[in-house]
C-alpha cells in the first residue's frame, strides 16, 4: 500500500530566477529513482507538495507538461518558511515531491472547443503546462482556436519568456502578452488583462476559458466575459488555499464541502457560484 505522505526524492537539476524582483524562482526537478517518474502520472492543472526536509511542504502547481518528459518544473513565489528555504537551494540539492495531487483542467471536456487562456502574474504556472500540452503535436488537433492572454505589471515580472516568445511565432495559437504600463524597450501590448480581454473579445460559442490570476484581475475580467455572453459553466478557474495533507483529510483548504486539494483546485465558475467564497 502506497504511503501518500512520503515524497518521492528528487534532485534539483536547474534553477532560474524568473522575475526582476527575484520573488519567483523556477526549479527543474529530476526523480532520483527513475521508477518514481512512472508513478508520477500527471495532467496539467494538478499540483504537488514540494518537500524540504526540516522545513516542511508547500503546495505548488506543476508548471511543466507531461509531454515534456520526466523532468518536473515548479515556479515558486518566496513568501513563507518553506519557500524561503527553497529559494536558497541550489542545483544538485535533494528535496522531495509528493503528488500529483488534485484534479486537473478539463482537457477531455475541452476537446473540439476553442480555448481561451487568461493568466495574470505568477498564476500562469499551470496554464503554461496547459498550453504546452495543447500545442504538442499529439494534442493540438483536438482543440479549436487557442487564445493565450497573459499579463504582468512589468516586462521583468513576466514568467517563461522563452516559451511564450516561441508561441508568438506560431500560427496555431494567438498569444497576447501585455504589461500594465508602457516602458522603454517593450514592443508588445500595454494594458490590464481585463482591457486586453475586451479587445480580444473571445466568442463564447463552443468555447472554454481558463482564468487564473490575482483576485483583482479576476474581479475585473469576470464582467468582460459576462458582457461577451459567456456562461458560468464555460469559465474554469483554479483556487489556492492553505494546505497540509493535499489529499482531502487535514481540513483547512475546504471551500464549503469541496476540498481545494482533492475536489479542486480546478472548479468551474458555475460550481464556485454555489460555494462560500472562503478562498
Amino acid at each position: 500500500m502506497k504511503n501518500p505522505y512520503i515524497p518521492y526524492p528528487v534532485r534539483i537539476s536547474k534553477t532560474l530566477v524568473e522575475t526582476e524582483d527575484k520573488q519567483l524562482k523556477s526549479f527543474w526537478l529530476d526523480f532520483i529513482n527513475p521508477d518514481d517518474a512512472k508513478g508520477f502520472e500527471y495532467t496539467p492543472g494538478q499540483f504537488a507538495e514540494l518537500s524540504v526536509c526540516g522545513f516542511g511542504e508547500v503546495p505548488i502547481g506543476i508548471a511543466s507538461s507531461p509531454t515534456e518528459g520526466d523532468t518536473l518544473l515548479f515556479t515558486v513565489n518566496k513568501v513563507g518558511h518553506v519557500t524561503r528555504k527553497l529559494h536558497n537551494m541550489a542545483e544538485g540539492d535533494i528535496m522531495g515531491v509528493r503528488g500529483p495531487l488534485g484534479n486537473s483542467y478539463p482537457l477531455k471536456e475541452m476537446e473540439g472547443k476553442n480555448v481561451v487562456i487568461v493568466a495574470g502574474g505568477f498564476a500562469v504556472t499551470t496554464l503554461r503546462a496547459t498550453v504546452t500540452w495543447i500545442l504538442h503535436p499529439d494534442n493540438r488537433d483536438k482543440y479549436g482556436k487557442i487564445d493565450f492572454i497573459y499579463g504582468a505589471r512589468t516586462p521583468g515580472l513576466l514568467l517563461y519568456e522563452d516559451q511564450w516568445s516561441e508561441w508568438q511565432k506560431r500560427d496555431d495559437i494567438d498569444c497576447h502578452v501585455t504589461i500594465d504600463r508602457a516602458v522603454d524597450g517593450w514592443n508588445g501590448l500595454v494594458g490590464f488583462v481585463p482591457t486586453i480581454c475586451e479587445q480580444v473579445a473571445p466568442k463564447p460559442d463552443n468555447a472554454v476559458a481558463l482564468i487564473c490570476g490575482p483576485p483583482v484581475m479576476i474581479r475585473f475580467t469576470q464582467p468582460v466575459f459576462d458582457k461577451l455572453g459567456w456562461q458560468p459553466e464555460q469559465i474554469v478557474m483554479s483556487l489556492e488555499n492553505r494546505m497540509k495533507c493535499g489529499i482531502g483529510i487535514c481540513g483547512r483548504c475546504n471551500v464549503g464541502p469541496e476540498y481545494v486539494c482533492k475536489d479542486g483546485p480546478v472548479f468551474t465558475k458555475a460550481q464556485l457560484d454555489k460555494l462560500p467564497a472562503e478562498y
Partner: protein
Amino acid sequence: MTDKILSKDQVAAFIDSLKKEYQVFAPTEENGKIIWAEANSADGLLWEFSNTTMSPKDFFFPQSECMARFKNDPKAEGGMIMHPEPELERSRVLMNIRPCDAKAFQLLDRIFIQDEVTNDVYWRDKRDKAILVGLACNNPCPTCFCTSVGCGPHHEAGLDILLVDLGDSLLVKPISDKGKALIDDLPDAKKVDKDKAAQLKKTSEASITSGVTMDNVNKRTVLELFDLPYWDRVSESCLNCGTCTFCCPTCHCFDIQDEVKGTDGRRVRNWDTCMSWLFTVHGTGHNPRPTKKERVRQRFMHKFKYIPEKREGEIGCVGCGRCVQLCPVNIDVREVVNQMNA
C-alpha cells in the same frame, strides 16, 4: 450470530485471554478524571460512568504522531530523504468503548480512507489492528444526543462486540467476525438475558430527551446556511480555543510539521483546529477565515452540512456531548444546529 453471556467475575479471565494477543485498554478513573488507560486486569474497570473526558481517537490518530524520519544531513548518504515510521507492533483491544465513539471511528474511516490516493496508512494500520468492545450506555447523560444524529446508547455500528451491563453479568453481542472469534467459548445468553438487554436499550434510548433537528438543514443549500445572520450571535462568546475540536471524536484536522535535532529529523502531524487563526492563513497574509465568526461557522457547517453533502447524508457528529460539557463558554452544539434548522 449468537449472543453470549459473561459474568462479571469472569471478566478478569476474559481480559487475560485477550492479553495473550492484544494490548487491552479501557476507561478508568484517575485523579478524579475518567481516562483511557491500559487494563492489565479487571481492577479499575468502570461499569458506571458517562464517558471519558477525551475521546479515544488518540489511539488511531495521536495528537502528535511521527509520520516519517530523515537524516538531516545533505552530504550524508541517503540524507534528506523521508522514510516512513514503522507500523504498530501489537494489536489493541479498546474495551468498554462507548457506542458513540465507535460510530465516530466508522465515520472517520470514510474520511481517512477514500481511495488509492487518500489512503491514510497511519490511521489504517492502527484501525486494522484494533478490536472495539463496546459498553452500551444504560444511563446516558443529559448532554447526550446520540439518538438524534443516527447513533444511540446501544448502537452497534463500528463495534466488534457490544457489552450490555445486566448487573452481575454482561450480555455479549458479537457484531463483526473479528469480535465473534473472541467470544466463541462463552456460554450462550438465555432469553431472559436478551429480554433484559432489549429492555435496557429501550429505557436508555427513551431517557435521551435532547437532540438536534436536521430537516431544514438538509433542505437548505450550503449558501443559505452559510449566510444565516445567526453566525454573528453564536460566535460572539466563542474564545476560539481548540477545546471543542480536540475533545471531539470526529474532528480530524491536523497540521504537519518538520522538526530537527542535530542530524535527526522527523515529520510530525499534530491535531489542529479550525478555531485557530493560523489554520487557514495564506503565506501572503490573506486569510479566508479572518474572524472568529467564519471559524465558528466552519466547525458547525463542516459537521452538519459539508460532511452530509459529501457522504450521503451521514452527519459528522455522534452526539457524545463532550463539547457541550467542556466548552469554556458553553456553546451548545444542540442549540446551534437547532438554530441552523429554525
